[in-house]
């Protein structure tokens, strides 16, 4: 692997003076006209979109990204406060349904440059090799059209760019991380103590939080507000890991631009650009290649809202695949009570994890598995745990006053992809007059069995560590799927290179292309798959298949 600075200089382009934004770099940013035909236009500056933008800018393409939200300044826009961080989430109207409706917004939907990685915890585990062929090996889920070995070099590259800190990782494809593990706090100590007493292997990491110094990014200060946007620039998000380098190589990032429709030329069948709204004005940006990276709800919604005469059921939706196989992970959280003071709000919530239950265990009645990680809810989120037990009034206040004594673990259960878990368009319209997304979700039996099994293990760990009471809240985390990668257009929306089957110069490079999810947090895989797609696109253009 080449020196990371030679591949991606983002961390060195951030200011060294304690400020978190290089304002000069943004001020000097290249600016295209709507009428310029850019080589490549990205919709959405999250994990997948920003990686794509940076890679193609490096390759010398004229690239532009539109993002519906703001171009954040961590110094002025982000706060060390739960309720004050509401603006980090996508809170435009959406409708949810199904037997297990999944709340959106704060838990899984980002906004602005950096996307959901602005408010993700910071866990960046790899998928296991088995995740790419669960249909063949486990008889459930789906096989990817690519293999772990196709993504592996991109995992290594992105782990260096974020960079990731953690112990040598024994699960999946064993590997090590570029940075040493962080010291652990009370919550991590409890997990390690309980695991040790059970003879269970748990490891510190993997987190995309600087341990030491990386370029001009500062060391983590362990303030615990990772989910509220890292004001320190210690936790990785594309805002600081890929966007600065993209700008330095001539990319434009145009914020507060809501893309409303992808335009496809009926005669050529090629995308010609996108319609978007900026400050109330409808505009059209021309592009030679369009990349959609709006994540699992907004990407399908944009495709469906781009229906035209050729694609009456929605762009790329000839085979009714758009919006389907959307997945969340079952994410029960179990907390335990100790007479000692844990004060789990001190230190990043992501600290320690185990993937010992990740793979199918033939002795169990369910397929696939779950991972367990520390989570450290702050007061408002902790109140959800307490009210979920039915407490209110005096009982609620009494439980809440006990906060410093509680330790909390979270599981990620691999829910299976199902065709009816999907995004469609609702009758309701947003402020732009566009139909909003309707997201229906129902668990299958395997999903429910994993939730119960994960809860049992978390209870065992906490009790082994000495907890005298344990409480659990059932919840969900992460989104992937909705425009999945497949071998052909009857089973998915994009091919193994993230190119849509239906429109030759339209790509999707976000979490929606993932056919399965494992029980890993998806950010690293989304970036790695996007980085691979970028490489393939550049290679194809060199062969003359896609002109920049």
């Amino acid at each position, binding site marked *: 692997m080449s020196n990371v600075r030679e591949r991606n200089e983002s961390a060195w382009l951030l200011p060294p003076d304690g400020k978190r934004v290089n304002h000069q770099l943004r001020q000097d940013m290249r600016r295209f006209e709507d009428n310029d035909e850019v080589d490549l236009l990205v919709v959405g500056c999250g994990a997948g979109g920003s990686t794509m933008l940076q890679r193609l800018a490096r390759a010398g393409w004229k690239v532009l990204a539109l993002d519906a939200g703001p171009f954040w300044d961590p110094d002025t826009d982000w706060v060390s406060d739960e309720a004050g961080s509401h603006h980090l989430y996508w809170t435009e*109207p959406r409708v949810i349904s199904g037997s297990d*409706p999944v709340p959106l917004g704060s838990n899984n939907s980002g906004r602005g440059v950096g996307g959901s990685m602005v408010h993700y915890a910071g866990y960046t585990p790899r998928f296991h090799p088995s995740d790419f062929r669960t249909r063949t090996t486990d008889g459930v889920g789906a096989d990817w059209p690519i293999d772990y070995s196709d993504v592996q070099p991109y995992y290594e590259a992105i782990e260096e760019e974020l960079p990731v800190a953690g112990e040598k990782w024994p699960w999946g494809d064993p590997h090590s991380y570029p940075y040493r593990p962080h010291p652990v706090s009370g919550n991590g100590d409890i997990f390690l103590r309980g695991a040790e007493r059970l003879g269970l292997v748990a490891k510190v990491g993997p987190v995309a939080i600087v341990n030491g110094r990386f370029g001009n990014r500062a060391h983590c200060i*362990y303030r615990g507000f990772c989910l509220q946007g890292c004001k*320190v620039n210690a936790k990785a998000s594309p805002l600081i890991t890929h966007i600065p380098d993209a700008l330095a190589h001539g990319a434009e990032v145009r914020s507060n631009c809501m893309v409303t429709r992808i335009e496809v030329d009926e005669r050529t069948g090629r995308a010609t650009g996108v319609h978007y709204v900026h400050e109330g004005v409808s505009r059209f940006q021309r592009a030679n290649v369009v990349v959609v990276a709006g994540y699992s709800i907004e990407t399908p919604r944009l495709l469906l809202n781009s229906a035209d005469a050729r694609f009456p059921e929605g762009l790329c939706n000839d085979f009714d695949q758009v919006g389907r196989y959307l997945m969340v992970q079952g994410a029960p959280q179990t907390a335990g009570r100790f007479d000692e003071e844990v004060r789990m709000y001190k230190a990043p919530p992501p600290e320690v994890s185990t993937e010992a239950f990740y793979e199918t265990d033939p002795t169990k009645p369910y397929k696939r598995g779950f991972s367990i990680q520390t989570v450290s809810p702050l*007061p408002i989120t902790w*109140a959800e745990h307490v009210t979920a037990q039915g407490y209110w009034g005096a009982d609620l206040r009494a439980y809440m006053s006990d906060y410093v004594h509680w330790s909390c673990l979270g599981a990620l259960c691999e829910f299976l992809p199902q065709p009816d878990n999907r995004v469609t368009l609702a009758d309701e319209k947003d402020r732009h007059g566009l139909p909003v997304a309707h997201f229906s979700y129902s668990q299958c039996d395997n999903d429910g069995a994993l939730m119960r099994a994960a809860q049992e293990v978390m209870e065992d760990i906490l009790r082994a560590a000495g907890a005298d009471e344990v409480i659990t809240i059932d919840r969900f985390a992460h989104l992937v799927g909705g425009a999945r990668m497949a071998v052909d257009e009857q089973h998915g929306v994009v091919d193994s290179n993230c190119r849509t089957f239906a429109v030759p110069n339209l790509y999707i490079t976000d979490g929606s292309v993932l056919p399965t999810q494992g029980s890993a947090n998806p950010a690293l895989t989304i970036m790695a798959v996007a980085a691979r797609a970028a490489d393939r696109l550049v290679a194809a253009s060199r062969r003359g298949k896609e002109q920049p």
Partner: protein
Amino acid sequence: MRLPRRGAEPGAPPAGQPWSGRFPGFDVLDQSSHWDPATTGVVLARVGMAPDIRFFTPDEEAVATALCDQLLAQDDATEPQARVAVVNMIDARLAERQTDGWRYDDMPDDGQAWRESLAWLDADANEQFGCDFAACSRAQQGSLIHSVQNRGSDTWHGLCAERVWSLWTRYACTAFYSHPFAWNEMGFSGPAYPRGYKNAGIDRLEPFEVRDARPGDDPLRRRA
């Protein structure tokens, strides 16, 4: 900046409650001079005057106030100085349409769901006790609230009861537990930028943190 001290003053939890006095002398606002300006602005705004009611009608405000006092065990009589203006904070969110970014397909939007559920609480109160919800005794209000909670996934006046319950508790807790007064009674140190923490670990405290005076006083044992 010097902020009001606790004791009989703002921020003091009421005496004699299970949640009061566990962190003697701890006041998170004492640390506010160590916070960054953006955070300080956001948090101190909550300690200042509450925003005026804009969304709720006076009738709705009356029901919402009684409901939230019940949900959060706040009592105007016993803790006038420490009462968090939860209803004003909820009202502000609804007026600004600051939702959580989703609604159930069988529920109206959050603002309308609040209006309807408050009206039904009042209707239930009149039917069962012959007076408005706000005029009911605390015990009567408690039993009406309990009956909504106990319905679980059944409907209550055409609304899914557990979704109404989730709406009420979500908004009420988000408001209350965003307030420094609430942080004081749970020993939470609040904002921590740019200072961060140096003493993470079991039973380790920062110099400004206060140890729980009643570590064995957990809810489970209290019940036993």
